């Protein structure tokens, strides 16, 4: 019990971020029309590509010569980039078509 309390005490700012982000995430898309479900999902898909930052940090810390780790890290950054870039481009392509006719 004490361990849990200590942990919560030490990470209270992170816990705040998580709780508030959950409410924010729900609130922010609460009234989306069904027309936009697919582009919204695709946009959210691109945003979780933020995981690439973790891959970059990992990659940038690898000691030279650790080739197995370097290759896995390289793969992680490539996949993360695919997620981010592909996600944003495909969402843009979907939304481009919603342009109103003049």
């Amino acid at each position: 019990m004490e361990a849990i309390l200590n942990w919560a005490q030490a990470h209270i700012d992170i816990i705040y971020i998580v709780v508030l982000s959950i409410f924010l995430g729900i609130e922010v898309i609460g009234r989306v029309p069904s027309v936009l479900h697919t582009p919204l999902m695709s946009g959210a898909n691109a945003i979780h590509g933020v995981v690439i930052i973790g891959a970059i940090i990992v990659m940038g810390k690898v000691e030279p010569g650790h080739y197995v780790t370097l290759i896995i890290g390289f793969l992680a950054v490539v996949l993360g980039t695919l997620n981010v870039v592909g996600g944003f481009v495909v969402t843009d392509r979907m939304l481009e078509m919603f342009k109103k006719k003049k």
Partner: protein
Amino acid sequence: MELSILTICYLIGSLTFIIGLKMLSHPESARKGNMVAAVGMFIAIFGTIFLYQENGVGLHNYGWIFGALVLGTVVGTLAAKRVKMTAMPELVSLFNGMGGACAALISVIEFGHIAALYSGEHPDQAAPTQGTLLTIFLGLIIGAVSFAGSIIAWGKLNGKIKDFSFKGQQVFNLVLFFATLAVAGYLVVAIDSSNYLLFYGILVAALIYGVLFVLPIGGADMPVVISLLNSFTGVAAACGGFLYNNSVMLTGGILVGAAGTLLTVLMCKAMNRSLTNVLIGSFGGNAAAGGASAAGSQGAYKEISISDAAVCMSYANKVIIVPGYGLAVAQAQHVCHELEKLLEDKGVDVKYAIHPVAGRMPGHMNVLLAEADVSYDKLIEMEEANDEFKSTDVVLILGANDVVNPAAKTDPASPIYGMPILEVEQAKTVIVNKRSMKPGYAGIENELFFQPKTSMLFGDAKAALQKLVAEIKSL
């Protein structure tokens, strides 16, 4: 100095994600919202590359990092630009899987990294805590499930993978799931970061779980599954945020996790089903049985010729077009728009009735029609359409099936019972364009086709529409 600038970069990143998601949920601002989030992501990524420091040491291996960034950007852009509009849902699923795999790989490296610490390679650094191990395992499991599941969803949408389930699969899945969690829990509690065998065992188990989780779910429900896996990947990204105490990963991941979960529920609501029903009800399996029993009750249907259909539509006052996946595969949206203009010139009131799940994904059909320059206010949503059918002379159904199946209202035994449908049978005449009498995606017979006011116009949607257009022009 560098670190405080980086903190500001992350703050900007987090803000743009929130604003971007907000703007993405309104039609007028959606495209800008996507851009805003992309710019924030760019700032966060390049901030990390140039400003990140740990114990006063910056990142190195720039060659590898930039090589990977360039490769990913080129491939990602090409794939996203070249993909056909009909294949977009698949691509989203594939990109989602990439994100999941990225999260899992980070965990793989970090586990090896801290294992090396533990064995004394870097005695100056602190030993891993239970919290670190927990986030590593969560990132690994969630990322791997999301990766494997997304690949299966991708395969299902493009028809490469068929539905598959075996007896007792749900029990097996549950056992596998809890066994994986138990082993991970054991390693966390014991602070054991050198047991590679168990670690890779968990990875493999999570991958298998991801495959088995998606395999039995019918292809028609894939959008819901992709949306769910999307929020999983968000949570996996947030685990990375915990691991590196990185606020932008944390907010981005949790935002997508929460928004994705809500979006999943909204999608289920549009189909009037619960999430449990989608995940455990195994739509595909039941539907096959329903299809078999209904197949015996086929009645007689009547066909209509191109010229009759042309006359029928040209002299109508009001025509409503119901587009479905058939229109999407045939790439017939442009001819469809041409037909609409021709009829309008003849004084016919033309509208499109869009079912919330028409096509393969909610909103998919709107995107396709918008591509063909169909004006936004010609598209009417289901409730409005159902009010208008009574005063409609001709309903033209283009490759839609399950969304106009009256069994959803009348037959409690039908697997789609309870799904809101477009009540086209209220119109005076119904013309159905389909390639054959084959049942639709849910695999069930549609009694609408056998009603006296319905006539069938067989053929590929594009070919049939082209002939219709030519016929109407010559009238």
